[in-house]
């Protein structure tokens, strides 16, 4: 535990001294102010076309930001020789990975919190109305995206040899999971027998964190009906009495299993040399 905290503390220090973090902070603040502007035109409450576009905008920006910062952080450990040095220390590989995850999560969540805080503060000063449930669901949506995509980022960083490789793979993953997802999904499911479509849809949705978090927030905002009949079961689950707990459980399993997978990659490299 002490090692995890030490690695996390170093990560937070390095994170807040990294110019990339400030570029993303500025970008996210500008983005939050953009959302505020959209809200000024029509007060956002529940799921509307405006909320849907806002969710999509967040979906474009946050995963990419997380993938870059997370994967670069791990590849730089390899490129700079830091991991080689640390592997001569009496520190466990899991402590190192968890420390990196916690530290990066703190940095990224601070960026997100700052952006939303700024948005809330300015709307408060200007006396603009903002539905608190919608506001907190947006915050949850953003935090969920960061926490889940950070796992993918660590996975990319573990497999990439350098930052260029990590950058290429990050953009590819972002494109596939965020931009191209509906098109690829429809094309793929169209090739499957009819009875397979529903179970496959569940599996693919769970595998794609962007889709998983988006579905949860859209349904919680009351927009379940726009998703179509294939998602009826999802609407029932999420709106059920234990829907939020179930969602958190799925996210937790997602995070733990991917952290363990990342650990396995690093440990394999360490043991085989």
């Amino acid at each position, binding site marked *: 535990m002490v*090692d995890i905290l030490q690695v996390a503390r*170093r990560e937070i220090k390095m994170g807040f001294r990294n110019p990339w973090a400030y570029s993303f902070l500025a970008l996210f603040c500008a983005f939050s102010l953009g959302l505020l502007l959209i809200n000024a035109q029509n007060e956002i409450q529940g799921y509307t076309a405006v909320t849907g576009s806002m969710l999509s905008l967040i979906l474009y920006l946050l995963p990419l930001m997380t993938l870059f910062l997370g994967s670069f952080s791990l590849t730089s450990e390899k490129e*700079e*020789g830091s991991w080689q040095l640390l*592997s*001569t220390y*009496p520190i466990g590989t899991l402590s190192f990975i968890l420390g990196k995850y916690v530290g990066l999560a703190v940095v990224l969540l601070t960026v997100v919190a700052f952006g939303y805080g700024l948005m809330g503060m300015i709307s408060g000063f200007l006396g603009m109305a903002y539905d608190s449930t919608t506001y907190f669901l947006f915050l949850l949506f953003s935090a969920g995206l960061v926490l889940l995509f950070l796992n993918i980022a660590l996975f990319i960083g573990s497999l990439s040899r350098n930052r260029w490789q990590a950058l290429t793979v990050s953009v590819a993953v972002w494109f596939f999971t965020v931009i191209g997802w509906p098109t690829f999904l429809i094309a793929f499911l169209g090739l499957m027998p009819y009875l397979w479509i529903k179970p496959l849809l569940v599996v693919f949705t769970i595998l794609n964190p962007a889709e998983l978090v988006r579905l949860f927030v859209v349904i919680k905002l009351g927009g379940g009906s726009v998703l179509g009949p294939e998602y009826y079961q999802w609407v029932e689950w999420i709106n059920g009495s234990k829907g939020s707990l179930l969602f958190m459980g799925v996210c937790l399993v997602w995070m733990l299993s991917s952290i363990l997978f990342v650990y396995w990659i690093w440990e394999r490299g360490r043991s085989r*040399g």
Partner: protein
Amino acid sequence: MDNPLVNVRGISKVIKKQTIVEEISFQIPTGSILALCGGNGAGKSTVLRMVAGIIQPSVGEISVGGLYWHKSRKQFSEQIGYMPDDYQFNQGLSAEEALTFWAALRRVPNRKARVNEVLGLVGLQDKRNRLVNTFSKGMRQRILFAQALLARPSLLIMDEPTNGLDPFWMNEFVDLLQRIKEEGHTVIFSTHQLEIADKIADQIVFLSHGRNVGSGPTKEFHAKFGSLYTAFNHSLGLK
């Protein structure tokens, strides 16, 4: 040799079907200094990385203080202080912050005092708050040396420790290593500067193309060949 601290037995390393190091064996008694000498690509760093537990030998085994890395990794690592050659320091930490982090991971008691002490040893006390990525090559080497000394390890492993050091710090480094040896620590380091090896090493291993081409006590090389240069050339089959 009675009870050597380091026992390297027939290690080889094959990476992508290429043999980097082949059948290297040596022992280092407690409180002595061994220098791995050889040109570029001789396999010095690979041998040191294997001794430090960063990479594992394809064949053979290494024990430090009777411990094997794969059997008791934590205890094995606790005995070691490693100074790498290719550390880049782009992390935006100050000298003091970097050393404090390393000291914490090694559970160094009285961390602050020890960090001050090693900063003093390498002459960087007044640069403690400067970011390490603004340091010159020689200053970075000194920070890495300080890092390796932090936990007073029984075995100090140093990869090209004098690279980038100016003549003053080169001499200081020689004095420091002598003092460390007198305190009972064991040292293994790589160098292509034979004069450094000549000054401080008790034993020399000459490497060429990943093979041990000559090894023995420094004094013996002197007695037999007159100088380490002649001994090295002889080992390589040169006149």
